[in-house]
Structure formats: C-alpha cells, structure tokens
C-alpha cells in the first residue's frame, strides 16, 4: 500500500480536519468529531435531512452536505457504520423543529446503529423517520429487494428528500418522496480491482487480473458473477440489462448517474456513459439528468457503477432544484 495518510488508524480524523479547513462555507464542525453539519443548519421550519455511513466512499457521504442537500452527516470508520450516538447527534444537529428524515443505505451495521439512534432521539422527543436505500439490483433478487444494499442511488434519494424538505413539506411528505425516489431507482456496479483500507494495508478481497466482478458491492462484497473483462460497450450492456430487467424504464424519463469506484480514469467513465446513452435511446428512455463522475467511491477500487432513477413530474422537479455541495452542485447557472 502506497498512500497519502499519516497514522492509518486516524484517516477519518485527519480527513475531517482537511474537509473543515477546505470548506468553511459549506461544512461546520459539531461537538461530536464524527458529525458534520451544513453551515446554516439546522434551518428552523424545515425537516432536517441526515445521512451517514462508513468513510472511504468520498464524496459520499460528507460531500453531499450543503444547501439543498444534507443538513448533517454521521461519519463512520472506513467501511464501517457510524456509531449510534453519532447518528443521534447528527439528528440533533439537523433538527429544525420539524423532525428529521434519516436517508441511509441498507447495511447491517447502519440499520442497527440508526435503529438505536432513533430510540435515543425518541427519548428526547425528537421525531426521526427513515428511508433505507436498497438500489443495488445485484445484491439480492427482486423477491428479496429489502435485502438489497444501498449504493449510488442514495445520492439521488438525498437530493429528492432534501429538495422536498426545502419546499417546506412536512416529515411524512419528505419520507414519502424519498421512499418514492429509492423505489424508482436501480443501480449495479462492476469491479475491476480490489481496494485497500489504509489500516489493513492490503486488499481484503481479490479480483483476478483480467476479470471483472459484476455486481460488486461498495466494500468489495461479491457480486453475481466473475467473468473475463469485457469491452466498455459490453459492460454497459450487462449493467443496463440487469437494471432494465428489474424495473420497467422503457419510454420513461430518467436521471442517470455513472460513478467511478475510485481509480477509474474520468475519460473511461465517459466512454461508458456513451454506451449507456445509446442503450437508453434504444429503449426510448430520455435521460433528463445526467451525472458522470466520481460520485460514490470505494477508496482506490477500479470499477464503475450505473444508476437509473425513473422520473415523474415531482422527482424531476426535486432533482432539478438548486443545491450546492462538494460532490454535487445544481443550478449554478452563470
């Protein structure tokens, strides 16, 4: 491992220091060093939006804190859920008196910590409702969709939930919109190399050189197949097939998000997007919002993920609403 770290056990602390120094206009510290809130949060009169998850996925999660997006985020160790208390503190940091929507991903640790955190919050009279992202079609069959992992679709869900909160919708309405968002969203990833957690010093899984892991999870969770690496065109086809088989998208408007997993050159994400766009056109699917970049990563993993969200008028409006953050800025016309 050859990386830009100090003590590998303290990468999260060190990254937080840099994040706060780099973005004083966006991010503010809280009493809990693992909770960061948006400058200006909590906003009174608005439902608070919270997320959280393991570190190493940057810009997720902290990179989506900002106006029009997340109000407060709980940061875990690399690839490990934040503590229950950190989620609890994030709820408090985001609470503007109208309750908090916690929009997070479906992982055992996150589920348990959020559940405990909600209990802690309830004891203080703070109402927290949750939406659990489960957009990864490769992580379980459709019949067991509740077991699916949340991946890059989370970003679109945050965008929708936050925009709805900005419209001053109440907590139940925010939850309904965010749940609708994730229900309309499907993702899948392909891994081309393992990644290395600094504290471990070496990958804790392997992908055979010249092979790709179809359906890989954001921490290297095994996918549905390991096959010899195909062309970008075939990768796109494979991923789009899996997504389109899972939810009817044909003829619909969509938001599409192609994310690198960390080490993939941006030019290759665009190569992939070119084929995704071709396939969308062939299915008469109109990509009204297109995001291509490193939106949700897994440290230095080589690979790519594709996410599709089916839009109705409401989701389209909410995705279009202005937002500003490290990872996503919308409406910055100039």
């Amino acid at each position, binding site marked *: 491992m050859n990386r830009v770290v100090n003590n590998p056990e303290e990468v999260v602390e060190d990254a937080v220091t840099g994040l706060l120094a780099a973005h004083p206009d966006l991010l503010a510290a809280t009493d809990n060093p693992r909770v960061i809130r948006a400058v200006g949060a909590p906003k009174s009169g608005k439902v608070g939006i919270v997320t959280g998850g*393991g570190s190493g996925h940057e810009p997720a999660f902290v990179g989506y804190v900002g106006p029009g997006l997340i109000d407060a985020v709980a940061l*875990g*160790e690399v*690839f*490990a*859920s*934040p*503590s*229950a*208390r*950190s989620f609890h503190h994030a709820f408090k940091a985001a609470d503007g008196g109208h309750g908090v929507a916690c929009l997070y991903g479906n992982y*055992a*640790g996150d589920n*348990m*910590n959020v*559940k*405990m955190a909600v209990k*802690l919050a309830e004891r203080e009279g703070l109402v927290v409702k949750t939406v659990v992202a489960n957009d990864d079609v490769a992580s379980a069959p459709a019949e067991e969709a509740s077991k699916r992992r949340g991946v890059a679709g989370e970003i679109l869900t945050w965008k929708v939930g936050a925009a709805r909160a900005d419209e001053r919708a109440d907590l139940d309405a925010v939850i309904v919109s965010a749940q609708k968002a994730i229900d309309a969203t499907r993702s899948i990833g392909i891994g081309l190399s393992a990644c290395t957690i600094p*504290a*471990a010093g070496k990958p*804790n899984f392997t992908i055979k050189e010249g092979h790709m892991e179809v359906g890989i999870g954001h*921490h290297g*969770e*095994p996918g549905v197949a390991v096959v010899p690496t195909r062309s970008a065109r075939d990768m796109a086809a494979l991923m789009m097939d899996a997504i389109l088989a899972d939810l009817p998208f044909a003829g619909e408007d969509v938001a599409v998000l192609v994310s690198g997993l960390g080490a993939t050159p941006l030019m290759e994400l665009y190569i992939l997007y070119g084929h995704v766009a071709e396939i969308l056109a062939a299915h008469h699917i109109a990509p009204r919002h297109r995001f291509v970049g490193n939106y949700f990563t897994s440290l230095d993993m080589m690979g790519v993920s594709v996410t599709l969200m089916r839009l109705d008028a409401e989701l389209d409006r909410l995705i279009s609403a202005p937002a500003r953050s490290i990872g996503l800025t919308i409406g910055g016309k100039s």
Partner: protein
Amino acid sequence: MDSVSLKDAGPIVADMAAVIVEHAAYLSEIDGAIGDGDHGINMSKGFRRAGERLGPHPPDLAQGFATLGETLLDEIGGSTGPLYGSFFLDMAASLKGRDAIDRDSFGAMLHAGVAAVIDLGGAKTGDKTLVDVLAPAVATYDEAAAKGEPFHTCLEALDRASEAGLEATRDMVARIGRASRLGERSRGHLDAGAASCRMLLGALSRGLRRHL
C-alpha cells in the same frame, strides 16, 4: 440465597475489559479469516474507552454495564457497537433498583441482554454469531437454575456452555453478517463475535464466582 452485592461486583467490568483488550489481536485474526479483520480493533477500542470512562474507582456492576453499553453505542459503529451496546445497556436496566445480584436476577439480566441482541440483530441460533454463545449459555443457566442448583453452580454451567457454544460455531456456515458472503467457505473457522462473547461471559462468571 447466595448473592453478590453490585458494589462488590463492580470491578468485574474492568476484568471483562481487560480480557478483551488482551485478546484484541487474536479476535481480529479470527475475524480476518472470514470477516474483515477488525473485530479485535472495534472491541478493544470500545472496552478501553469504557475503562477510561469508568476511571480508577469502579462503580457498581449496574453502573459499569451502563457505562460499557453507552460507550459502545457512542464510540463504536459497525455491528459490534450497537449489538454489545444494547446487550450491556439492557442488562444494566434489568438491575435497576437492586443492590445485589442472585441466581434469579442474574438469569433475568442475561435474558434481557440476549433479547436485546436478538431483537436488534435478528440472528438466530446456528447463524454463526455471538448468539451461538449467548443462547446455549442462557439455556444451560436456566436449566441449572430450574433444577435448583446454587448460583455458583449455575455460573459454572454458563461458563462451560459458552465455551461449547463457541466451539460449535467452528462447524457452522455463516448466515448473517459479513462472513455469510462466503457461504460454505465460512465453515471451519470460529466466529469472532462468538469468541469475544465467550470471553466476556467467562470473565463475568469467574468474577461473580469469586464472591460466592
């Protein structure tokens, strides 16, 4: 009936923390075989910090468990934090209003803790988790108590059953948690959470027996 004052039992929490911190590398090693190799790190971080919070003058057992549970919830994320956190918090809650612990209240406490773990994590016996130590340990304890065995004997039975429970995880296929991804390949290895749980129950049992 035999009982131990919660005050006298207070230092046992420090023993429990010590056994975890001492075996951190071993626990991570076991986790490394079929998980992500951080169980020792997670646990020792939590128990060390709990030790710091408890300070040099140990409070009584209920307060000790409460602090332990809170520390785990505060500082340790992942699965370990909330699972062991609610385990200890709910055990502490079951001791509320008491100043001593005897055979039956110990049983009730253990039930409360195991229920919290199962309620939160949803693991069943045989899934290859710490529940595979907890469930047989509490069942064996109940049996001994139902037979009218004294507290000391019941605690011995608990100790042996937790050891057997841990050993039994070796031949299980993981059905929950990270190791479940490996399917059949998870067989042949102990479960890390079961190992830490066995250490904790062992230290608790021994510590109480010293006072009986």
